[in-house]
């Protein structure tokens, strides 16, 4: 495994680098107690360092450092939320010196350094819309990637996890999403290096439907290594990222070591998860009774009773399980005066709540920095390497109705057993409805027989050198490399009804991606009395390269090989391979001006060139300007004596881009397409056809954003908050639209259309309790975004939201329409189910049990405004998927050794299309020996009625979720010297979901076409998880 090859030498190098200068000099001991200056209460966990020795204070605030070199030394004490203390102590050889320290709380938020892209700024000086997440507060419960740490904690960021699958990807939208067809994913920047967040693994094969959705590429980073996450939201903040900034930027800073002795941390938990809710399918007894009732009512022939099986199986229970997760982190950090380092290892193994799938990660990380040349040169190294194994479930997120685990979980006959005895061998084998290929498949067998595995090895590293050229002017070079190797292996065995028609089908795909980044920066700072100026100017060059290869074989004699020996197949399907390269070149600058800590101005300019765009549009300019006025610093405010400890207003405007275009999209491309092969005689001639129409005018989507905000702090920041308003206008929207025919390909990517987002965000933090031995804080975030399609290049609408399932080919549920938001549901309006047949002149207009819809046509099928056969003329807007507003409520409390935190999220308003209920509320399934949802038992819909998309299946999305509650208890480890502490905790995820939605979860994502939103179809059930863990610090 390449992970080990990379990681081990790296760790070794780190250790060598970090090795302190040791000398057999005389030493002494320093001890003492650290307390809060105001309350005189002990402060636990404060970092104390002196002369290369270091540790942290225990729960009673005490510390002891032995082996401290004798002489006059500097003692440094730091603690989150308190001002740093340095003080000189004289250590006598063989003696114990006592140094007690009082620390004062500081107006943390304003002095805190916040990453803003190519640099940091003091919170108080920021003029754009920037939010931060403190990682230690957000890393609770089972968190597999950084996105989970943002969810519910930042105003204006909506994160919808695709499903309850381990490692599942997510839909992330910062301020509503600016694009229809290009990516709405923010740009992720890890330790200053922008990363490419496209999937690292090749796509899979769907069985009778769409393939499982890709999992989150962000899982490469262990959440426990994250120090802080900063989200840049408005143009003033993101313009420095130019063409990549339109969807917002997520800056992730990882943890560093601190000067002092070696600190070791172990953090581990085990978790137990079960599906939080059930769809409720009929079990065998319910199904048998239903058939008996229908036979008695004359709706089914009596011989149907004989066709029922002998068992009583609840297939939903049969495919789900109690799943276990274990996670272990080991980290050590430390540093001498000029070198600090931190190294960590992580192992995580998460089982899914559905049988036979999961997520496993082994990850190592190292960072170190060192100063030289009298602190004028700083060298820094960051290295992460992870190996992830994704064991996919053969589910079907979208598309057809045959095959997948969840489809069969619903429809497979519950009177049949999971396993039966094979009559020839006497062994227990999975029950199937027949031999060989079948479209109905035992779902438990599917989970066990179908192999679909992905794995990614990804190494992310950067090295930077920062040189102080002259006082106030720094030059930085930062070189980053991101390399991933992803593989996907699939095998559909002969024994499975899926693989039988191919006599076994094996596929192997491999993808690798390399991104190289070079940044050079000049950073200047100058004070002119009350004025200060900060400037940064830079150049960035990024090269992306990706290639993929795949091959497939069919016709195996044995299932023994899985996908590991394609040569075992008798028929090889033509392999494929491709390679993409692209480059991005940027020049950028930012200037910040501050007058007397009252008036702030920021200007940003970035010029980007991308190879991916059309010949005449490769370069673009992205400017932004913003200003802030810190009213609370004005003398008149101080005279007024208002309780404002901070009051600021700010506003900004700028342009951002979205480059979501694949390489070569502007060129005409010829390729040997599978669909262009033709047999002359009976020999296949490989056909070369144009696979893409040229568009030399192709360019980026451009978003112009205005933002205005107020930041305030009251009563010494006991209460602080932000209120924000923004408008984003996106133009030159990238849309794949039909082109005038004749054309080689019927659609082409064009810059057409306009989209508008406007919204309000608010966040409020309150210190509700501050006592000697107890404290409590509450945080509230609120956001409301209004999204509107303004123009589609003259088009009236674009259909999207493909409906999945049996009898739903060509059915769509959404339209993208000017004047309406994205995610607008459009279709027939359901009225009721006919209680009686309607016969006019011998013609049956509708049957008893038929669904009736509102119509206003004049033809014979529309009677009194009702019809059983709705047409396009009867369709109307049925609501949209966007919430009116979202809320996140967090709380942290401490009492003595106990700590408690919680996160509640709520989204109010909006609709969700329950595609699952549409397709599986059909009692007529009984005619084909198939099962359906319990909810259908009591509705009056007839046995022969097809599933028709309408307002009947559009449900309210409003929900409130108790996302996490964590209770911890901290104590000093007995029998050890000071500074060895432990915390044990118990944490619960997704403990409570309040919603009227009838499916698994209203907050899920089904990939149903262009910019589709709010559709749920057979999603992986979301788990409810309880975990217990321990943190140890030595």
């Amino acid at each position, binding site marked *: 495994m390449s992970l080990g090859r990379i990681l081990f030498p790296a760790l070794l190098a780190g250790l060598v680098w970090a090795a302190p200068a040791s000398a057999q000099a005389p030493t002494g001991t320093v001890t003492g107690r650290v307390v809060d200056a105001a309350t005189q209460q002990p402060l636990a966990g404060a970092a104390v360092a002196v002369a290369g020795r270091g540790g942290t204070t225990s729960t009673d605030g005490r510390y002891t450092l032995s082996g401290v070199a004798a002489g006059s030394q500097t003692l440094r004490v730091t603690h989150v939320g308190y001002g740093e203390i340095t003080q000189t102590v004289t250590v006598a050889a063989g003696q114990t010196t006592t140094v007690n320290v009082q620390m004062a709380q500081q107006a943390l938020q304003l002095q805190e350094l916040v990453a803003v892209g190519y640099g940091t700024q003091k919170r108080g000086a920021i003029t754009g819309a920037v939010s931060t997440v403190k990682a230690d507060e957000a890393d609770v419960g089972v968190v597999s990637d950084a996105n989970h740490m943002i969810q519910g904690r930042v105003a204006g960021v909506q994160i919808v996890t695709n499903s309850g699958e381990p490692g599942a990807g997510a839909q992330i939208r910062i301020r509503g999403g600016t694009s229809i067809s290009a990516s709405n994913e923010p740009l992720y920047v890890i330790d200053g290096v922008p990363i490419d967040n496209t999937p690292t693994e090749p796509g899979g094969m769907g069985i009778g439907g769409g393939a499982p959705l890709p999992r989150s590429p962000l899982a490469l980073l262990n959440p426990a290594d994250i120090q802080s996450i900063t989200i840049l939201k408005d143009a003033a903040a993101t313009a420095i990222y130019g063409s990549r900034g339109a969807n917002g930027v997520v800056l992730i800073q990882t943890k560093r070591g601190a000067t002092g002795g070696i600190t070791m941390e172990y953090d581990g938990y085990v978790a137990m998860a079960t599906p939080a809710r059930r769809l409720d399918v009929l079990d065998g007894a319910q199904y048998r009774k239903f058939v008996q009732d229908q036979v008695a009512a004359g709706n089914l022939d009596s011989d149907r009773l004989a066709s029922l099986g002998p068992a009583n199986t609840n297939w939903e229970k049969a495919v789900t399980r109690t799943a276990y997760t274990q996670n272990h982190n080991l980290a050590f950090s430390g540093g001498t005066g000029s070198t600090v380092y931190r190294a960590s290892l992580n192992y995580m193994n998460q089982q899914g709540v559905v049988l036979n799938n999961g997520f496993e990660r082994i990850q190592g990380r190292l960072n170190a920095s060192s100063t030289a040349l009298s602190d004028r040169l700083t060298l820094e190294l960051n290295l992460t390497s992870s190996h992830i194994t994704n064991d996919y479930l053969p589910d079907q997120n979208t598309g057809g109705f045959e095959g997948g685990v969840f489809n069969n979980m619903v429809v497979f006959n519950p009177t049949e057993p999971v396993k039966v005895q094979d009559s020839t061998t006497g062994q227990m084998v999975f029950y199937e409805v027949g031999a060989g290929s079948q479209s109905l498949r035992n779902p438990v067998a599917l989970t066990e027989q179908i192999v679909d595995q992905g794995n990614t090895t990804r190494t992310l590293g950067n090295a930077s050198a920062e040189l102080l050229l002259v006082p106030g002017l720094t030059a930085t070079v930062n070189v980053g490399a991101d390399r991933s190797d992803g593989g996907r292996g699939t095998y559909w065995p002969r024994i499975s009804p899926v693989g039988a028609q191919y006599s076994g089908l094996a596929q192997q795909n491999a993808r690798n991606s390399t991104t190289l980044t070079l940044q050079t920066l000049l950073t200047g700072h100058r004070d002119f009395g009350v004025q200060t100026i900060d400037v940064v100017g830079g150049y960035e060059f990024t090269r992306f390269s990706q290639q993929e290869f795949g091959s497939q074989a069919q016709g195996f004699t044995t299932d023994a090989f899985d996908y590991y020996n394609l040569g075992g197949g008798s028929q090889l399907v033509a392999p494929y391979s491709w390679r993409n390269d692209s480059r991005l070149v940027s020049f950028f600058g930012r200037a910040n001006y501050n007058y007397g800590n009252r008036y702030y101005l920021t200007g940003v300019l970035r010029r980007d060139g991308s*190879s991916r765009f059309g010949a005449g549009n490769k370069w673009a300019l992205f400017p932004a300007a913003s200003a802030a006025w810190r009213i609370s610093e004005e003398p008149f405010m101080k005279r007024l004596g208002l309780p404002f400890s901070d009051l600021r207003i700010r506003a900004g405007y700028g342009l951002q881009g979205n480059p979501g275009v694949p390489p070569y999209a502007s060129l005409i491309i010829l390729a040997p397409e599978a669909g262009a092969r033709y047999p002359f005689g009976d020999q296949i001639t490989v056909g070369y056809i144009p696979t893409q129409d040229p568009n030399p005018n192709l360019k980026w989507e451009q978003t112009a954003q205005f933002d205005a905000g107020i930041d305030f702090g009251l009563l010494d920041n006991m209460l602080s908050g932000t209120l924000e308003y923004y408008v984003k206008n996106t133009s030159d929207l990238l849309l794949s639209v039909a082109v005038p025919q004749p054309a080689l390909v019927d659609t082409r990517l064009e810059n057409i259309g306009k989209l508008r987002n406007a919204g309000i965000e608010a966040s409020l933090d309150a210190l509700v309790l501050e006592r000697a031995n107890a404290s409590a804080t509450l945080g509230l975030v609120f956001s409301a975004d209004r999204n509107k399609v303004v123009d589609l290049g003259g088009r009236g609408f674009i259909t999207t939201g493909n409906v999945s399932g049996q009898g739903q080919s060509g059915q769509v549920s959404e339209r993208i329409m000017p004047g309406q938001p994205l995610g607008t549901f459009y279709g027939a309006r359901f009225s009721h189910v006919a209680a009686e047949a309607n016969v006019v002149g011998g013609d049956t207009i509708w049957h008893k049990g038929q669904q009736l819809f509102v119509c206003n046509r004049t033809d014979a099928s529309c009677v009194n405004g009702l019809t059983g056969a709705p047409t396009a003329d009867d369709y109307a807007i049925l609501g949209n998927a966007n919430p009116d507003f979202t809320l996140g409520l967090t709380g942290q409390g401490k009492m003595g050794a106990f700590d408690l935190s919680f996160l509640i999220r709520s989204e109010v308003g909006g609709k969700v299309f329950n595609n699952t209920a549409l397709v599986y509320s059909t009692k007529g399934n009984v*005619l084909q020996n198939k099962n359906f949802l319990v909810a259908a038992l009591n509705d009056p819909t007839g046995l022969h009625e097809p599933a028709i998309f309408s307002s009947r299946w559009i449900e309210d999305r409003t929900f409130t979720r108790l996302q996490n509650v964590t209770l911890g208890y901290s104590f000093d480890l007995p029998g050890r010297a000071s500074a060895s502490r432990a915390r044990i905790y118990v944490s619960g995820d997704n403990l409570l979901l309040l919603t009227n939605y009838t499916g698994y979860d209203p907050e899920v994502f089904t990939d149903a076409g262009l910019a589709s939103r709010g559709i749920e179809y057979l999603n992986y059930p979301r788990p409810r998880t309880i975990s217990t863990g321990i943190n140890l610090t030595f």
Partner: protein
Amino acid sequence: MNIHRLMSAVWTPRLAALLVAVPVVGLLQSCTDLSENPTSAITPDNFYRNADEVLGGLAGVYAQLRSTTDDYYNLSEISTDEMIVPTRGQDWYDNGTWLEIHHQTWTPTSASGLGAINGAWVNLFQGVARANALLAALPHANMGDADKKVVTAEARTLRAFYYYLLMDMFGGVPIVTDTDIKPRPRNTRAEVFDFIETELKAAREDLPETWSAENNGRMTQGAVDAILASMYLNAQVWTGTVTESGLQPGQARWQDAIDAVDRILNSGVYSLAANFNDNFTPDNSNSPEIIMQVKFMAATGLGLNFVMRALHYSQFDPSPWNGFATLAQTYYAFDTSDKRMDIFLEGPQDNVLTGQPVNDRSGKPLFFDPTIKDPTQATEGEGVRIYKWPADPNHVAENNGNDYAFFRLAEMYLIKAEALNELGKTAEAVDLVNKVRARDFSPPQPLNAADYTQATFRDRILEERLFELTAEAKRRQDLIRHGEYTAPFGFKDQREPYRILMPIPQTQIDANPMLEQNPGYGG
């Protein structure tokens, strides 16, 4: 090892400056070059240079023929009395698209308007575009002039054929022979007719009469004559004008139709197959009757999938779709002693591969009942199924190797017969029809010329075309030519006369606002 001493020995300001400067200078050099050079794809500038590459381009033009058996085929069949796709419980509702096609209630924005009708437009025009791309590149190709002439003629014939299908479905469409993508107005249907005729005649000069077996399926003089014969047969429709109140016919071209058929008959290349079935079996490329076909192969993505559309779930492996069926009235129109009736599956059913009896999904023996009681609530077994192209024992999943003939000699006889009858030569016409019928009855049941007038034989030929050509995508053309397309049949009511043209799909008008909608379908 002491890192500090090491560092301070190594690090000098000069070295640091060098470290910063070297990558900067190195990368600045390439910094403004943003041109793209794809490595796993090619651009037309560096392709179609030699005979092999040209053949690769030509294969792509032919390959688009496969798509004609999807949307174009479905519209031509399901909008007539030959086929219906009833809603079968949870299956085949599909946004109402299938019954909408059968009931002829489509609109530019309805399910089929945005679905199958748009699909037919796109697929056929893509064929045109592929031909244009190849034709634009051919002058620069480095290959023998003789070969280049043939390839040019093939590409022009294929382009003309795609236009023939577009004209049939939509009327007048933009005539385009360059590769620019831009909005263009529609030509009239008569102009398209003239363009196709001119192109085919020109291409015919350079096409061979026959190809060797390893080139079976490429365009020939016979294929050109067959397309022309069909054009002349329908000339009154296709050179006429369609208004909201129906067709104002154009000039008849009966003698041209006869001449085109005679060129085929006199070529000596074609003869009727001994058995009707020989034209449809997996080895039908050997049939001497087939004049122009879409080639299929039992290989992934290259096979015919008609068995999937019609057969019941349990009759084939992989499990078919149990959809397409035939109206009882059409099934019963056949003479029970006509061997051509064997294309239907009716009554108790077997697996077509194993011959074993099969059950329906509820566990009862599968039985195909000709009567569909209610097409909105049909059962699994309702409706007889068309099984004209029997399953290929060597099939790869749903891919069967049976070729699909667009034109075969039997139809040429029927075209000539129809033209002769229109010219008053009914007795000659009856003779020709009898030549086709000869293989289908034992004992033979020839038609008697004395039983027919010109008018009654006109109806008889329409019927005979049904028996001979069911499921060969001819019925829509035939019903329109005979003025019966919009008339009531089966579950379908009388429809407006303008529905003999499909609407231009809204998607296409959005993309090309210069396209004017067909009459009757709104602005």
